[in-house]
């Protein structure tokens, strides 16, 4: 039962990753890409959760913990950049 769910979850997440990636590629603006990047981080948390279930090793939750915090930092950085007027005029 759980194995099937894990597999299905992996598939769903993989598709989601693909969709997110398309947004990352097509943009069109930098903020859109940043959102996509955030989403990738969130998806990574999801992957790690599934992986933890499938492997039974909980150590990887630490990675998810750090991810949850730092992906946010990247977004803050980008937001600051955009707000300060960088990267838009030339995009």
């Amino acid at each position, binding site marked *: 039962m759980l194995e099937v769910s894990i597999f299905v979850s992996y598939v769903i997440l993989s598709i989601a990753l693909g969709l997110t990636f398309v947004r990352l590629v097509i943009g069109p603006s930098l903020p859109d890409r940043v959102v996509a990047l955030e989403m990738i981080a969130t998806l990574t948390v999801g992957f790690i959760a599934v992986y933890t279930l499938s*492997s039974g090793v909980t150590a990887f939750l630490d990675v998810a913990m750090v991810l949850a915090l730092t992906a946010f930092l990247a977004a803050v950085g980008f937001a600051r950049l955009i707000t300060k007027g960088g990267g838009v005029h030339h995009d």
Partner: protein
Amino acid sequence: METLMAFVVGGLFAAAIYMMLRRSIVKLVIGLILLSNGANLLLFTQAGMLRGAPPLVPLGATQPEGVVADPLAQALILTAIVIGFGVLAFAVVLIHRAYEVVEADDMDQMKDTDT
């Protein structure tokens, strides 16, 4: 998986090199980042890839149960990542300063030094 990773590594190297061959110094830096990722993954691949077996000793045990992933390679990669980060930080600021001085994101305007 090692086969797949070989493609990944090769792809990263190729992308890195293509970027480094551009005239833009920003692309140069992006190339450096990709390059360092490629080299790290190569090392990772060479250590053999194992799913779900982190090199951790369970509480109360003296050794992990069963086979675990190669901790040495992981330690090396960790070191390499950190070193790469330090170097990259320097490189990023360097291109920033170079841009300020040269006032162009163009390597072709940075060739007077040589000749």
